[in-house]
């Protein structure tokens, strides 16, 4: 019983990390109708940036976010302007191929710079644990959870309490109508992409601190992230949060009661069941006819 409780707690805490990455992905889809398959690569890039700052300049992982997040925000802006904006026709499909290509380039650069050896981050909160009852929990999980709460709270504030957020949500509902009432949709899109990518940077640091990784980890990450946003309903932030937490809890509980090998298979099976019953995901809206 305690084992299962332990699994649920770890699942919730690490689920918050995935919530961070997936919210960026689903936000980009919601606003721009494009699927950023490169999110996994961007997460790993963020992890390596934090790792690099810590190794070379001894900057604490969490303090390093103050550098990596703005840097990745700018990278996101650049990518949007250079590669996504020029696509005029067939946006969704071509954007998937383009972000896949970006992902390949990032993977290539990272494996040249850092080789494909597994990397582990170190800090006092990574290496020491907190004792709760009978089990131990590395401090970093709690710190990561705090980070997710702060960043997702900030995202919520931007979306629902600022003028930019109104513009963003309007573009999410209807791009053309938003344009008609004077919202600069292109600008909103670029900034949204930037926000999504900087959330990937934060998620990357949080992810990298809890596990070992190498440039190939991006395939594992992107498959999980895609499953999370399909399950939550494409473009639904709330859905992505719940799906991320649910996924990791299910995975951790399965690995305790059954076997770690089957942990994510169970989750994928859940995806199949949900798609049969609710093709639009848990919180998604049915895609209407687009003219």
């Amino acid at each position, binding site marked *: 019983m305690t084992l299962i409780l332990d699994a649920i707690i770890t699942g919730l805490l690490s689920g918050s990390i995935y919530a961070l990455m997936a919210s960026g992905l689903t936000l980009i889809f919601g606003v721009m109708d494009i699927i950023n398959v490169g999110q996994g690569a961007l997460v790993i890039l963020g992890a390596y940036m934090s790792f690099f700052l810590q190794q070379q300049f001894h900057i604490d992982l969490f303090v390093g976010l103050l550098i990596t997040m703005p840097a990745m925000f700018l990278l996101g802006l650049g990518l949007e302007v250079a590669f996504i904006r020029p696509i005029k026709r067939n946006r969704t499909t071509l954007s*998937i191929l383009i972000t896949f290509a970006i992902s390949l380039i990032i993977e*290539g650069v990272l*494996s040249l710079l850092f080789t494909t050896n597994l990397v582990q981050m170190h800090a006092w909160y990574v290496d020491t644990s907190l004792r709760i009852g009978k089990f131990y929990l590395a401090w970093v999980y709690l710190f990561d959870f705090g980070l997710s709460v702060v960043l997702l709270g900030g995202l919520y504030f931007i979306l629902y309490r600022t003028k930019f957020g109104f513009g963003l949500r309007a573009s999410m509902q209807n791009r053309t109508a938003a344009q008609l009432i004077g919202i600069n949709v292109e600008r909103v899109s670029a900034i949204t992409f930037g926000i999504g990518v900087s959330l990937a940077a934060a998620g990357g640091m949080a992810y990298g601190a809890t596990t070992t990784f190498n440039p190939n980890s991006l*395939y594992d990450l992107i498959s999980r992230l895609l499953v999370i946003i399909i399950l939550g309903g494409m473009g639904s932030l709330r859905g992505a949060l719940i799906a991320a937490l649910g996924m990791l809890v299910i995975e951790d509980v399965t690995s305790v009661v059954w076997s770690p090998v089957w942990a994510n*298979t169970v989750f994928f099976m859940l995806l199949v069941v949900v798609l*049969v019953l609710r093709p639009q995901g848990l919180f998604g809206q049915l895609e209407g006819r687009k003219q």
Partner: protein
Amino acid sequence: MRTIKPVGLIALLVISIVFPLIIKSPAVTTVAFFTLIFAAAATAWNIFSGYTGYIALGHAAYFGIGSYAMAIMCKDWGLQGGYLPFLLLPLAGVAAGIFAVPMGWIALRTRKHTFVVVTIAMFFIMQLMAFNLRGVTNGSVGMTLPIPTNWSGVFFNIPFYYVALLILLIALLHSWWIRHSKYGLGLLAIRDDEERALGLGVNTGQFKLSAFVISAFYVGMIGALHAYYIESLYPAFAFDPLFDLVVALMTFLGGLGTLAGPILGAIILEPTQQYFTMRFSQNGYYLIIYGAMFLAIILFLPEGILPTLRRRLARTNSESSGLQTNIQKDEEAPAAEATIHSDEVKR
């Protein structure tokens, strides 16, 4: 125009048949073999994704299923290396097709945008299965296939080359037949406006699923052939995410939804890729160059080579006589025209 086309086609066929008899170097025939299997895979992929407009990025799953089916059949029936395993290729294709029925049915419950993501996710599920179902696939240890030991180094590629050519021709004929049948018209109608097609009496669900299964069948066959060629199987290579991307890229480069486009794309890209792989042994450079090439193609040639050429041709012709080109355009490039039209409507 009318006479040039069949003559050109026959010339191409003859060239591809005598090619390995003239140039015997295994280095060249290897590249030729890979070009053929990717041309066939892209043609098969195009039957579903090109005609219906549903972009599937998980066909590597069927490639992997086909190759594992081949390996398992060879192992269980104790086959020796030689010509016999080639006869199993259609069975491996059927295995992939059988898997494609439920997977396609589930994936096609979602609409275009979500569909892409679901296919990617399903691909990863299958890859995971290959790692986890150790009893069937031997897990990450991998499997080996029978080796045709009595084929010499120079001869080795020849049978594979012709089998690949045969699969390509069959897939191409099938694609051509679909393109010119009422069934294909239904698929194109789905691409242009699914709701309207449904309203006009096209059974969209059945049409989409059957096209999906047909393309999975060919891709499974190609996977089996590839497995027999390389003689060993590992989950990460049998289920390779790059395959999804490469096949889509080839089709996009040549022209999505056209007959010759996927083949043209494969002929351009596969030798280039082989060259880069040989030139830069370090994986990183190769990925960067490939990604960059990919970006350039999509940004500068988003429609693909054939549709772009056709439009150029039509424009120069229309300067000389307006009426004639209109007729010709309707006959030659209904696919390209329809795409342009539907996108204009969307905007």
